[in-house]
């Protein structure tokens, strides 16, 4: 009982009655005859950490820049907290942005950079400096307040940029690839730092990233973009488990796509006839008709490999291991089906197996019907 209420409280997008905090309607941006952002509709709720995920050049930054007011939409509207933003210039918007290049003022100290927004509001300098000191403590930079940006490391600069964007406690913080310039280890640490700060301050975040792991770790919801359009919006789990299209499935994590036709769509079983993997049993999905062309999306970790023949499994194949990569926590395989089709499979190395499955072995590969997601586009 409490469980369901809690879920409703923290996930307003599941509640049809909830009022969105940011409402984007039919938003487009064209540069000449090139459409960078194509009729985007998006609702974002207060306190969310929303990720815009997509390959480089798909229009993420342009969308963000329209929210901040740096680009004028060709069409469509942006409403923030009930206020239409069409005629509001950037310096009057209740948003702040953390730039991909950080855009720190090179002639000002860290302290001055962070205080900039407060001083523009006309706050007294003494009060502003007090707030700056607090903010610098939050991002763990108190000891570097008097440095200039060019005397800082990449990670430190990133935190100055974050502090500067947060100091005015904006209703909405826009972050353009905030961790893009950091190395892998620092990026992972900083992801959790970002979540901590977001939860401490309760500000709504929109984060742009091209890194799917980052999006999965950070966000409450993800909007997947492709060529200027939002192709799917959902919680990380939804996006991963029930991708809407082949493109999304392929972009988020790795996936095997097998083309086939619907053969039997009756009862609680559904069978897809494929050229490459024979008949495949999948969990049923509504709205499919016999003979329709579909694609089966099968995640590598859902394929089980074993030397002995497993009992009672629906989708079972005798396969040859073509390739194997040992990555410590898991091993990834490329296996060849009798049809010649290569599939990716991975096995987590939960035990210290003395004799793992290796190259050129003939083994059994199997997967559950519910591991398959049937896609129509």
């Amino acid at each position: 009982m409490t469980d369901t209420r809690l879920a409703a409280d923290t996930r307003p997008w599941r509640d049809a009655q909830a009022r969105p905090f940011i409402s984007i309607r039919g938003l487009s941006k064209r540069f000449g005859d090139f459409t960078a952002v194509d009729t985007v509709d998006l609702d974002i709720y207060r306190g969310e950490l929303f990720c815009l995920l997509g390959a480089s050049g798909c229009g993420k930054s342009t969308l963000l820049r329209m929210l901040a007011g740096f680009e004028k939409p060709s069409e469509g509207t942006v409403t923030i907290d009930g206020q239409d933003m069409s005629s509001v210039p950037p310096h009057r918007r209740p948003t702040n942005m953390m730039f991909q290049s950080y855009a720190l003022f090179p002639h000002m100290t860290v302290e001055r950079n962070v205080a900039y927004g407060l001083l523009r509001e006309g706050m007294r300098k003494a009060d502003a400096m007090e707030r700056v000191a607090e903010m610098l403590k939050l991002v763990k930079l108190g000891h570097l307040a008097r440095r200039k940006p060019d005397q800082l490391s990449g990670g430190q600069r990133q935190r100055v940029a974050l502090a500067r964007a947060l100091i005015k406690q904006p209703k909405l913080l826009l972050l353009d690839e905030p961790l893009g310039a950091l190395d892998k280890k620092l990026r992972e640490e900083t992801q959790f730092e970002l979540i901590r700060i977001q939860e401490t301050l309760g500000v709504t975040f929109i984060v742009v990233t091209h890194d799917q792991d980052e999006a999965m770790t950070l966000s409450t919801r993800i909007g997947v973009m492709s060529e200027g359009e939002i192709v799917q919006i959902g919680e990380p789990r939804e996006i991963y488990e029930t991708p809407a299209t082949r493109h999304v499935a392929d972009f988020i994590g790795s996936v095997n796509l097998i083309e086939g036709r619907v053969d039997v769509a009756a009862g609680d079983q559904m069978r897809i006839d494929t050229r490459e993997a024979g008949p495949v049993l999948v969990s049923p999905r509504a709205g499919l008709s016999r003979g329709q062309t579909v694609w089966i999306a099968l995640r590598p970790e859902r394929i089980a490999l074993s030397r002995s023949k497993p009992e009672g499994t629906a989708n079972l194949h005798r396969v040859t291991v073509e390739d194997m990569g040992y990555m410590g926590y898991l091993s990834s395989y490329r296996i060849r089906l009798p049809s010649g089709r290569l599939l990716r499979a991975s096995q987590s190395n939960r035990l210290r197996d003395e004799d793992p499955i290796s190259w050129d072995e003939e083994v059994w590969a199997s997967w559950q019907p519910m591991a398959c997601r049937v896609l129509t586009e």
Partner: protein
Amino acid sequence: MSARPDPGADAAGLGARAVRRGRTARLLAALGLSGRTLVIAVPMLWLLVFFLVPFFVLGRISLAEVMIARPPYSPLWDRAADGTLNIIASLDNYRFLLADALYRNAYLSSIGIAFTSTVFALLIGYPIAYYVARSPEPRRTILLLLVILPFWTSFLLRVYAWIGFLQREGLINSTLMMLGVIDTPLVLMQTTLAVQIGIVYTYLPFMILPLYANLVKLDDQLLEASADLGAGPVTTFLTVTLPLSVPGIIAGCMLVFIPAIGEYVIPALLGGPDTLMIGRVLWDEFFSSRDWPVAASVAIVMLFLVVAPIMWLQSWLDRRGLNQ
């Protein structure tokens, strides 16, 4: 000969070259030189030949006495009858400069005219440089060409052209009279104002170019960041653009101020009898009075007047970390 070069021979060739290079390096090292020193040596030599040597020649003349001779100044030393060597050097010329109000006034008025001209060149040049730097690409190049265009015609001709504008029946007076703004023509020619106009006009590209070079590097995202944090366009200009363009402002001002102090042609053509500038004093001393020692000391003092503020500015810039 085989078609493919023998790799062994090739490696041997490389080895020999390496040895040869080693020998050159060793030779240089024996002379106390490295490749780096050699690279620096060229501009150093240039400075030595074309700046330091003339400077010492001038310095030496400034310590001499004027004489009717060829060249018209006393030798640095002479041999007395008993064979002792006497060095003849005195600071009399410098004392003379200090004592005579003419020179002091000429310096002060040169600096004054150069200063006001520089300020006006900055006030006019900054918006132009800003506009050019912010223009989109094809237009920017055209505008930049227009800024440099005047250099294609003779400087003398262009200053002459200003006489046409400024004289009694010139374009400015006739236009103003025609519009009924004034009844009697303004006296523009042969005034300090005319000299200032001439200097601002002539040196404007030298102000615009360094400013342009600075402003074109300005990162748009800094301006966006400033707007994002609540600064309007004017505040953004004052708190971001202007401070970041200080190196460009200083470079431009130096390029105008320094040559303007010693300017000779413009005051000679556009100035009047009461426009006192050190360039003219210098000319008169050299060629009218043929007093080379005094002329030389005038030049040396001017050099120090110009160099001292530059050195001070440089160290100020270094201290503020603005020098790029």
